């Protein structure tokens, strides 16, 4: 031990950070099974004996908001899985077919850019471009259509959310696949050409199988985040008229917990969310291990 004392000394502040800011809150979820009282300090609330069992969970499951927030969380994520997830893979495959290196590099540099722009600005752009005198409605009207209030009508919220997510992340998301594509052995392509495979067949039989492990790992990670809709973007884009489709568990927890100070109830809702999320992650990992021998652990 003595010979490693400096290593432990270095790790001390790091472990303290994780203890205080990550593991203390995990203990803190106990307030989901209590009635948090502002008369006591946080730790008194944790360690006193005022258990209320699953009261808050029941209240959530029986409320009108359960179906809405749980459903919206699942649907937005499902759309993400169907539309947002494959977009960077497709871009990487298309970029892989480009022979002009300069053109390829330029497309890459430009499409990475939106990843670094703040969500506040992204939301500001979305609001501006979808407004009644914004670009999108100008185009719709020029084509003879009728102006749409995209951020006021609930049926448009998910479309706006998903399309803007693709716009922001398609380029950055493709990096990891391009890295995997660069590692594909050129001999595999040569062999495929000798066998008479065209480019489409090469993509299908050489390129895709080569990047499949990367796709699977990222898919598991994505499913492991299934229930975590980025609350920031929702809060920046939704409004009461679109709650019907836009209000997800995390935005609901934010309103009930941090704006209305219902600490125990909102912690229960959030804990339910975390548990579902964790189950999804473990299952996705297990299924992938069985089917493809690729897994996170």
């Amino acid at each position, binding site marked *: *031990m003595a010979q490693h004392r*400096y*290593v*432990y000394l*270095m*790790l001390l*502040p790091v472990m303290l*950070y994780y203890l205080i*800011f990550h*593991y*203390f*809150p*995990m203990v*803190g*979820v106990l*307030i989901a099974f209590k009635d*948090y009282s502002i008369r006591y*300090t*946080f730790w008194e609330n944790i360690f006193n004996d005022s258990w209320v069992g699953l009261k808050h969970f029941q209240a959530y499951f029986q409320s009108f908001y359960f179906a809405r927030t749980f459903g919206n969380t699942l649907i937005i994520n499902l759309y993400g899985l169907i539309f947002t997830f494959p977009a960077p893979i497709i871009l990487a495959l298309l*970029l892989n*077919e480009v022979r002009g290196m300069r053109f390829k590099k330029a*497309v890459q540099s*430009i*499409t*990475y*850019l939106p990843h*670094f*722009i*703040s*969500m*506040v*600005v992204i939301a*500001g*752009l979305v*609001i501006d*471009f979808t407004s009644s*005198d*914004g*670009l999108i*409605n*100008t185009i719709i009207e020029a084509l003879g259509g009728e102006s749409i209030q995209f951020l006021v009508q609930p049926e448009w919220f998910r479309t706006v959310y998903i399309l803007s997510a693709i716009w922001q992340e*398609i380029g950055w998301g493709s*990096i990891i696949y391009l890295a995997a594509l660069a590692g594909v052995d*050129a001999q595999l392509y*040569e062999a495929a050409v000798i066998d008479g495979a*065209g*480019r489409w067949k090469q993509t299908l039989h050489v390129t895709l199988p080569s990047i499949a492990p*990367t796709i699977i790992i990222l898919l598991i*990670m994505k499913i*492991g985040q299934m229930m975590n809709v980025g609350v*920031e973007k929702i*809060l*920046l884009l939704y409004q009461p008229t679109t709650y019907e489709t836009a209000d997800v568990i995390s935005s609901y*927890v*934010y309103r009930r*917990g*941090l704006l209305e100070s219902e600490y125990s109830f909102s912690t229960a809702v*959030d804990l339910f*969310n975390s548990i579902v999320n964790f189950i999804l992650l473990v299952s996705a990992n297990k299924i992938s291990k069985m089917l493809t021998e690729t897994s*996170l652990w």
Partner: protein
Amino acid sequence: MGMVVKRTPGQKVFDVGNHIFLLFLVVITLYPCVYVLAASFSDPNEVMRSGGMLLWPKDFQTETYGLVLQNRMIFVGYKNTLFYVVVGTAINLILTILGAYGLSRKNVPGVGVMMLLITFTMFFRGGMVPEFLINRSLGLYDNRWAVILPYAMSVYNLIIMRTFFANIPASLEESAKIDGANDFVILFKIFVPLAVPSIAVVGLYYGVGHWNSYMRALIYLRDRELFPLQVVLREILLQNQNEALQSATDTSFAYAENLKYATIVVSTVPILCVYPFLQRFFVKGVMIGAVKG
């Protein structure tokens, strides 16, 4: 692919289509940036009449930027954001470097367990409300540390740095050990100088994160004098959205409406300025992280 194969007509059609599609992607990525920049320098009435279509300033003016300079909250936000970026990133880097070195010592008992405990936090969290209550009970509420200390490390960046440290040849370290160097000397005299590029990558990840962060301040800050730029920007954007519902006739209102474009420009330009130089380092960071996933 480096092979020269005769292209069939079908492939030629595909190539043309592919290039057109990628160009379209470039255009829709760049257009919002061009539009905002053009709008911020245009006459506000022209912007309103443009229907979202501007490639170049119409009736060029710089008055809007004069309004930005006069706006006290934008100045306050800028100053605060600089503080959060500089101090926050410094703390991030110190802890990440120490952690990455410690966690790359796989022969030290307990390190494996510690890594497991840290990785677990990526997949399971206590949640927004317990985090808020604990931070507040520690005095991390409505002051500058509240938006810095709870975000002092990210597992993802720690893994990037650790992977880099793990790849440094052991021979360098062994010869230093023979000379009697302790772990602190090895870290700061050997590892850190070798890791400057990856420290830059990780520092920039953290820095951009601080620059762009909005939720932290929304949750933890009440005092307007502490607000970062993103919160101020959001207020300006919202203010105009609400006022846009009222009749827009007088010119000062029109300029106020235009203020949002200029504020977006002013708050995003620093990111855009460092972007071209650092883009390739960022990409490298993603790849290093990808190895360990």
